[in-house]
C-alpha cells in the first residue's frame, strides 16, 4: 500500500481519494435505488404494511439503538418479512398522517428513483466525501508523517460507516434482512476502525508518544472488539463499549500530548485548535448519538444519526483552519493549491459528462454539427486546460545561465539567497516554500520518495529543500536531479571564476600601490627636497604626467616600448621647436623599433625614459645654446640604448652643480640597473644611456631577496 503510494504524486493521491469517494457514493446510490417504493402521502408513517402490523422499532434508522444482538437479529428478520410484502404487485398500507388521522390505501410499488432519495442520504454522502478528500489531501502532502497517516485513516473510515448507514437509515420501510445486516456490519467495522485510527492519531500527533510499532496494541485490542462485534458474540453490542472507550483513550492521549507540547507554543496552539475540533466533534457524536441509547437514557440519539455524522466533519474543518493559522501537520497555505487543482480536474470531467448527456438528446442533424463544434472548439480547449493542469514542464537548467550568474555575482549574501530561491522556484515550481537546510547533502538528491529534492550548500548559500515538484503535480525524478546538479555546477563555475578574477584584481591592486609608492612617492619626495625652483617644477610635472598615465592607461603592468618612444619623441620635438632647436630623431629608428614594437616594458621604464628625456631636453634648452639635437635609439635583445647629441657648447660634468639634475638622472638609471655617460665633444655634448629591458621594481627586488 505505502509502496504504491510512494509512486504517486500528491495530486494523483488526491485524485485517487476522489475516485474512492465516487465509487463509495455510487455504490450507496446503486444499493438504494430500484428497491420497491410506495408513493405514500407527505409525512405519512405506515402502521400496517400488507399482512404485517408494524412494531415501533421497525422504522428506526439505526439498529444499534436496540442495544443487544438478539434484538438486532430479530429486527433483521422482521425487515426481511416486511421487504417480502413490498415485492407483491399491490400492497395495502395503513398509515398515520402527521395530524394523527389514520388512512388505508392500496399502493403499487415502483422502483425507487434517485430523486426519491431524501436529504439525509445526500448529507451523509457529503460527510463521507469531505472526510475522504481531506484525508487524501493530508496524505498526499505529508505521507511520511505518522500523525498525518493516522489522520488520513480516520478520514478513510468516515465514509465507510457514514455511507453504509446512509443506505439503511434512509430506507423507506424495509431492506432485505441480509442486506441490512451486511450494511450494519460495514457501519460497525468503519466506526470501530475510525476509533482505532483516532487513538493512533493522538498517539502520534504532534509528536509520537511511542514507537509506531505500538500502534499494533490498539489495533489488536480494539480489533478483537470489532471482530467479536461482527460475529455477534454475546448479547450486548460490543461496539457500544468499543467506541466510547476509544473516545476516552483518545481524550486521555490528547491531554498527554497537550502536556508534552507545553514548551512548544506554536505546536501547542495548532494542537489546541485541532484537538478542539476533533475531540468536540467525536465527543458530540458519541454523547448525542451513541451514549443515550447505550446508557438507556433514550430510545434513540438526541439528534438523528444522519446529521450527527456531520460532527465528524468538524475535525476536517478544524484541520483546514488549523493549517492556515498554525501550520498543523507543518502544512502551509500552499496545501490549498491541491484543492484548486482538484476542482479544475473535476470541472473538466463534469463538463465532459454534461456534454455527453446533452449530445445524447440531440437529433442526428444537429449532432453532427455538435460533433464539429466539439472537435474544433471543445477538445482543443479541453486539451489545453488538461495540459495546464496535469502537464509539467521538464526542468531545464541550460536556459538559466543569466540567472545563475546573477546568483553567483549577487553583491550581498541576502540577495544571493533570494535570487537562488527565485531561480529554484522558476525551474522546479515547488508548491511549498523552499526551506533552508542546515545539514545539506554533498550532492543533489531526492528525499521522501520523490516528494522532496535536497540541494547541497553553495558558497555563501545554505542547502535547500524543495517539496512537491511542479506545484505538487509530479514527483522529483532523475531529470530534476540532473537539472539541479547542473545549476549547482554552473553556480560553482561562475563563482570560482569570479573569485579568480577578484584575486587577480587584488594582485593588480598590490602592483598599483607599489607603482605609486616607487614612482610617484619617490618623485614627490625628490621635488620636496629639490633646492632649485625650476627643478621642483620639473619633478612635479613629471609626477603629474606619471599619475595621468597611470590613470589614463588603467593601471596596466606593461607598456609598448614603441608607444613610449613615440610619446617621448613628440614631446621633445615640440619643446625644442618652441626654442628654435631642430630635433633630428630619424624616423628610421622608429621604424626599427616598430619591428620589435611588441616589446613590453614596465611602468618604471616608461617613467625613467620620459623623465630622462625631459631632463636632457630642459638642460639643452637652458644651458647648451644648441640649434640641433640628434637622438639615436638602438635596441638589442636585452638593452635599450639611447644616444643624445647636441651641437651646443657642452660642459664638463665636474663643472656642473651636481644638484642641477645629473645626480638625479644617474640615480634613476642606476635604480633600474642601467648606465649613463656624459662626454663633452669638440662641439657639443654626447650622452649615452643604456637601460636593461627586464626591469624590476625596487619592491620586487626586495621581495625576491627575502
Amino acid at each position: 500500500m505505502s509502496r504504491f503510494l510512494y509512486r504517486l504524486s500528491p495530486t494523483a493521491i488526491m485524485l485517487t481519494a476522489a475516485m474512492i469517494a465516487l465509487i463509495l457514493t455510487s455504490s450507496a446510490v446503486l444499493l438504494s435505488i430500484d428497491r420497491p417504493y410506495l408513493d405514500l402521502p407527505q409525512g405519512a408513517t405506515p402502521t400496517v404494511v400488507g399482512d404485517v402490523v408494524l412494531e415501533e422499532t421497525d422504522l428506526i434508522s439505526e439498529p444499534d439503538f436496540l442495544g443487544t444482538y438478539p434484538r438486532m437479529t430479530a429486527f433483521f428478520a422482521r425487515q426481511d418479512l416486511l421487504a417480502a410484502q413490498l415485492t407483491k404487485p399491490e400492497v395495502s398500507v395503513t398509515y398515520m398522517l402527521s395530524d394523527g388521522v389514520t388512512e388505508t390505501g392500496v399502493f403499487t410499488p415502483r422502483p425507487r428513483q434517485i430523486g426519491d432519495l431524501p436529504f439525509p442520504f445526500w448529507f451523509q454522502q457529503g460527510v463521507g466525501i469531505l472526510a475522504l478528500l481531506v484525508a487524501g489531501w493530508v496524505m498526499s502532502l505529508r505521507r511520511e508523517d505518522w500523525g498525518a497517516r493516522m489522520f488520513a485513516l480516520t478520514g478513510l473510515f468516515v465514509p465507510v460507516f457514514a455511507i453504509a448507514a446512509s443506505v439503511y437509515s434512509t430506507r423507506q420501510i424495509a431492506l432485505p434482512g441480509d442486506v441490512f445486516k451486511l450494511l450494519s456490519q460495514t457501519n460497525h467495522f468503519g466506526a470501530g476502525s475510525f476509533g482505532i485510527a483516532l487513538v493512533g492519531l493522538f498517539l502520534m500527533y504532534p509528536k509520537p508518544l511511542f514507537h509506531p510499532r505500538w500502534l499494533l496494541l490498539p489495533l489488536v485490542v480494539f480489533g478483537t472488539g470489532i471482530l467479536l462485534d461482527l460475529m455477534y458474540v454475546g448479547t450486548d453490542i460490543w461496539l457500544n463499549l468499543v467506541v466510547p472507550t476509544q473516545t476516552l483513550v483518545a481524550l486521555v492521549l490528547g491531554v498527554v500530548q497537550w502536556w508534552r507540547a507545553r514548551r512548544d507554543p506554536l505546536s501547542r496552539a495548532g494542537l489546541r485548535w485541532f484537538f478542539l475540533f476533533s475531540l468536540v466533534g467525536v465527543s458530540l457524536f458519541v454523547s448525542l448519538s451513541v451514549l443515550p441509547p447505550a446508557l438507556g437514557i433514550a430510545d434513540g440519539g438526541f439528534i438523528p444519526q444522519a446529521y450527527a455524522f456531520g460532527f465528524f466533519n468538524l475535525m476536517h474543518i478544524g484541520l483546514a483552519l488549523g493549517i492556515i493559522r498554525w501550520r498543523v501537520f507543518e502544512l502551509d497555505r500552499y496545501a490549498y493549491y491541491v484543492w484548486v487543482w482538484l476542482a479544475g480536474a473535476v470541472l473538466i470531467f463534469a463538463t465532459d459528462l454534461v456534454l455527453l448527456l446533452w449530445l445524447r438528446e440531440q437529433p442526428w442533424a444537429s449532432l453532427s454539427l455538435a460533433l464539429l463544434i466539439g472537435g474544433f472548439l471543445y477538445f482543443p480547449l479541453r486539451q489545453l486546460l488538461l495540459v495546464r493542469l496535469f502537464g509539467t514542464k521538464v526542468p531545464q537548467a541550460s536556459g538559466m545561465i543569466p540567472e545563475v550568474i546573477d546568483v553567483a555575482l549577487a553583491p550581498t549574501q541576502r540577495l544571493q539567497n533570494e535570487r537562488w530561491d527565485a531561480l529554484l522556484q522558476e525551474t522546479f515550481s515547488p508548491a511549498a516554500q523552499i526551506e533552508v537546510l542546515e545539514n545539506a547533502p554533498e550532492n543533489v538528491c531526492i528525499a521522501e520518495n520523490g516528494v522532496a529534492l535536497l540541494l547541497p550548500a553553495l558558497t555563501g548559500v545554505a542547502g535547500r529543500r524543495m517539496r512537491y515538484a511542479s506545484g505538487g503535480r509530479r514527483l522529483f525524478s532523475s531529470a530534476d536531479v540532473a537539472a539541479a546538479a547542473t545549476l549547482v555546477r554552473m553556480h560553482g563555475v561562475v563563482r570560482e571564476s569570479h573569485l579568480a578574477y577578484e584575486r587577480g584584481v587584488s594582485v593588480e591592486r598590490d602592483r598599483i600601490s607599489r607603482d605609486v609608492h616607487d614612482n610617484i612617492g619617490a618623485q614627490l619626495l625628490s621635488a620636496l627636497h629639490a633646492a632649485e625652483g625650476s627643478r621642483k617644477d620639473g619633478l612635479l610635472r613629471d609626477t603629474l604626467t606619471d599619475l595621468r598615465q597611470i590613470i589614463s592607461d588603467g593601471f596596466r603592468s606593461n607598456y609598448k616600448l614603441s608607444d613610449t618612444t613615440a610619446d617621448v619623441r613628440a614631446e621633445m620635438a615640440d619643446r625644442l621647436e618652441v626654442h628654435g632647436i631642430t630635433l633630428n630623431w630619424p624616423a628610421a629608428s622608429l621604424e626599427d623599433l616598430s619591428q620589435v614594437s611588441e616589446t613590453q616594458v614596465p611602468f618604471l621604464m616608461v617613467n625613467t625614459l620620459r623623465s630622462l628625456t625631459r631632463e636632457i631636453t630642459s638642460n639643452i634648452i637652458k644651458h647648451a645654446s644648441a640649434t640641433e639635437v640628434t637622438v639615436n635609439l638602438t635596441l638589442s635583445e636585452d638593452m635599450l640604448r639611447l644616444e643624445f647629441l647636441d651641437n651646443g657648447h657642452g660642459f664638463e660634468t665636474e663643472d656642473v652643480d651636481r644638484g642641477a639634475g645629473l645626480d638625479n638622472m644617474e640615480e634613476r638609471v642606476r635604480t633600474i640597473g642601467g648606465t649613463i655617460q656624459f662626454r663633452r665633444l669638440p662641439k657639443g655634448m654626447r650622452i649615452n644611456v643604456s637601460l636593461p629591458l627586464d626591469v624590476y621594481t625596487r619592491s620586487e627586488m626586495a621581495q625576491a631577496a627575502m
Partner: protein
Amino acid sequence: MIEKILIVEDVAQSRAFMTAILSGIFTDAEILEAADMRTAFFLCERHQFNLALVDLQLPDGDGYGVLRKLDQTQDDVTAIVTTAMGSDSAIVAALSAGADGYLLKSDPPDLIASHLRQIPDGTPPLSPAIARRVMDHFRQTGPSVDDNATLTRREAEVLSLVGRGLRVSDVAGALELAPSTVSSHIKSIYRKLNISSRAEAAYQAARLGLLTGDRPR
C-alpha cells in the same frame, strides 16, 4: 581675431597660470573666468566668446556640460578642454562631444604656450597617445553608416604616423604632402570624431567609466 576668452577652471592658481599665459599671447583679448559650471553657464548666456578653455573636472559638474552649453549659446567659439589628470579616453570623449582641442596642464609652460599660439592658425594639437586613442575609437566604432564619420585612407595614415611619434612636419615629409594639408587632415579627423555616430555613446561610456584604459593588443 581672439577678442573674448572664457576660462573655466576651479583651481585658482591654475586659473591665474592660464590667464597669465593667455594674456601674454592674446594681448588685446578680454579674459573672463569661471570657477564652476554655474558661473560658466551664466557667462555663456551673456557673452560671445572666441575661445574657451574648459576644465574637465568641475566642482558642480563636468566639462562636458559646459561644452554642450557652449554649443547651444555660442556662434563661433574654439572650445579647448584642459586637464591635469584626465585620462586619454576622457579627452577623446570630450573631443567627440565637440571640443576643438585639448591642453594638458601638466605640460611645461613653453609647450602650453606654443599650443595656444597655434589656435588662430587652426591646427589643433594632437599627441601620439591621443592619436592612438582616436585610432582605437574609430576601430571600435567600425564602419559607420555615415560616410562623413569614417576616416579616409589618408586620414588614417596621418593618424597612425602621429600615433608613432611623428609631428606634422615629419608626417608631411613622410607622406610627401604640404604641412598645411596634414593640418587639414587632422582637423578633418577632429570633425569626424565629433560627428561619428557612436561618439555620443563613447562619451556616455567614458562618463560612466566604461571606457577604461585597456587597448586591444
